[in-house]
């Protein structure tokens, strides 16, 4: 297990509010990690920093074997480095079919001129079908994404992330608004994905985190409060005070 992503001493301030305070965090490849914490703990800001949406005031974000600093890259470049991000609300291209959504996400050249002349080959078609089967949407390839159910949209977005073949997947509250069986399917998808890559799941829902059965990082006021197995951190008195005790 090599360290894939390492944040050290990262701080961000928004209008005087310290959203992230001297945060240090590491994840290996492959690994499944859950991040929990109360509202305002800095979970989403953490993702914004890793994906390049927010620039930290201080600290370093180092990526991969060649130890690239992500702070110098744009969002698109970071994504091309192999970091995929799933948003909290499902964001798929509602006006386009499931197949087209996956096709756009497939790991291919992203430049406008190359994309202009690109046409799907049989191998790409097969890959799209495989992905659709994996996320349980094999029968919906021609369906417009806009008419899928909430859960199906979440899966489609996860499918699009998998199509990107990222080395690190950042997933923001994947189980929000899902029914029981839908949650189980999502758990399986994430666990399966984490066998070959690093997956970070930000989640509120303790039951869901328990099912993921992985190492947990507890964030509080922008820094790491505790880290370890779920049973271990939930036994931590500080964690109980700031989060679980409420």
């Amino acid at each position, binding site marked *: 297990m090599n360290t894939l992503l390492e944040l050290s001493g990262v701080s961000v301030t928004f209008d005087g509010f310290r959203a992230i305070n001297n945060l240090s965090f590491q994840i290996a490849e492959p690994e499944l990690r859950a991040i929990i914490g109360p509202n305002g703990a800095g979970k989403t800001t953490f993702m914004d920093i890793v994906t390049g949406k927010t620039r930290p005031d201080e600290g370093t974000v180092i990526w991969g074997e060649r130890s690239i600093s992500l702070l110098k890259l744009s969002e698109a*470049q970071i994504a091309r480095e192999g970091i995929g991000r799933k948003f909290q609300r499902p*964001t798929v291209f509602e006006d386009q079919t499931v197949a*087209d959504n996956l096709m*756009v996400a497939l790991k291919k050249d*992203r430049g406008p001129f190359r*994309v*202009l002349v690109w046409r*799907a080959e049989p191998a790409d078609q097969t890959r799209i079908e495989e992905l659709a089967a994996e996320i349980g949407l094999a029968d919906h390839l021609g369906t417009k994404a806009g008419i899928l159910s909430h859960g199906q949209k979440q899966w489609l977005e996860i499918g699009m992330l998998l199509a990107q073949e990222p080395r690190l997947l950042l997933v923001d509250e994947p189980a929000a608004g899902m029914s029981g069986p839908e949650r189980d399917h999502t758990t399986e998808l994430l666990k399966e994905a984490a066998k070959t890559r690093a997956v970070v799941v930000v989640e509120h829902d303790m039951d869901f985190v328990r099912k993921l059965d992985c190492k947990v990082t507890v964030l509080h006021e922008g820094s790491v409060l505790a880290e370890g197995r779920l049973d271990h951190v939930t036994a931590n008195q500080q964690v109980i005070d700031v989060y679980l005790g409420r």
Partner: protein
Amino acid sequence: MERSFFARNPSVLIFMGLLGLFTLGVTVLSEAYGTSAISTSLVKTLGMTLCLCLVALAMDLVWGYCGILSLGHFAFFGLGGYMIGMWIMYARTEAVVVGSLANAPLPPTPAELTDAIAVQIFGVVGGDSFPWMWAFSHSLTLQLMLVVLVPGLLALVFGWLAFRSRVTGVYLSILTQAMTLALALYLFQNDTGLRGNNGLSGLQNIPGAEDIPQSVTSIWLLWASALALGLGYIGSAWVMSGKFGNVVRGIRDDEPRVRFLGYSVEGYKLFVFTLSAVIAGIAGALYYPQAGIINPDELAPIASIYLAVWVAIGGRGRLYGAVIGAATVSLLSTWFTGGRAPDVNLGFYTIQWVDWWTVLLGLGFVLVTLFAPKGLGGLVDYIVRKDRA
């Protein structure tokens, strides 16, 4: 996936067929090549309408497909017109000056000739020499290249600055309005070198075709406009039919998603914006020889707003929608404001359409927005089920 481009885009073939029939019909009914059922001025109006359809197509690419509401596209259209107008004015005036000096005792030197042409063109604004921007006006080839290059470069620079700074939505629309307004004000100045508010005139007289009657040249220009519209339609459909179109529509609907998939959103916007400006420039270069005159008023902000209204009424996000909207509204506008629409006498008040047309247009725009958000082109969905999924 292996089906041909036309099989996947049946509307392109239908459009080409209709455009071909229209062109053939006008030709057969024209004064030059047919029964004279259509006057030359109507041929010109129809040819100009085709150019307006082409610029609407360009507008649909940026707005309907990419979600960039540009309210400055007539700047590109006007620039295209100015570029071709410079050559027409130069070449025409040169012919006139050479003709008038033919009987002079001494043949004029090239410098005298140039000065005489300059006085002819710029006397109206008190000038007597060519400004720098007329450097290539003697060459049709170079001016034709400028028809593409000038709008393209303006769009490239403007777009690069705006998109790089992540200016979007209404702020970008305001910036594009400012762009076309600034350009119009710049052109209004006599010192700019494009004859200020006089603009370029006499553009209907194509150099080298002095002996050919307007009835014939008007048909030629109509053919050229139809060809440009056809090629523009096929080209736009091809660009938007592949993965590029999926990415661009993705930017319109969910820009962050596209960005986090690893696509450089700014690069794609710049590509579409510049392509659209080039198409608009070509449309303008074909329009103004039919209109006969171009002046800075053509670049006024209101013109670009009308363009957005046409596309909205026609239905954005589908190419034929833009064409339907531009054709319908601009032809109606010509009819209502041309004084041929009968006045409506209400007894206590007489509605004169010249004044009331804009009210009717505004009302139509509101009604379409409220009750048919997909525009006139959306009616096609009732006939053809598009989602065959």
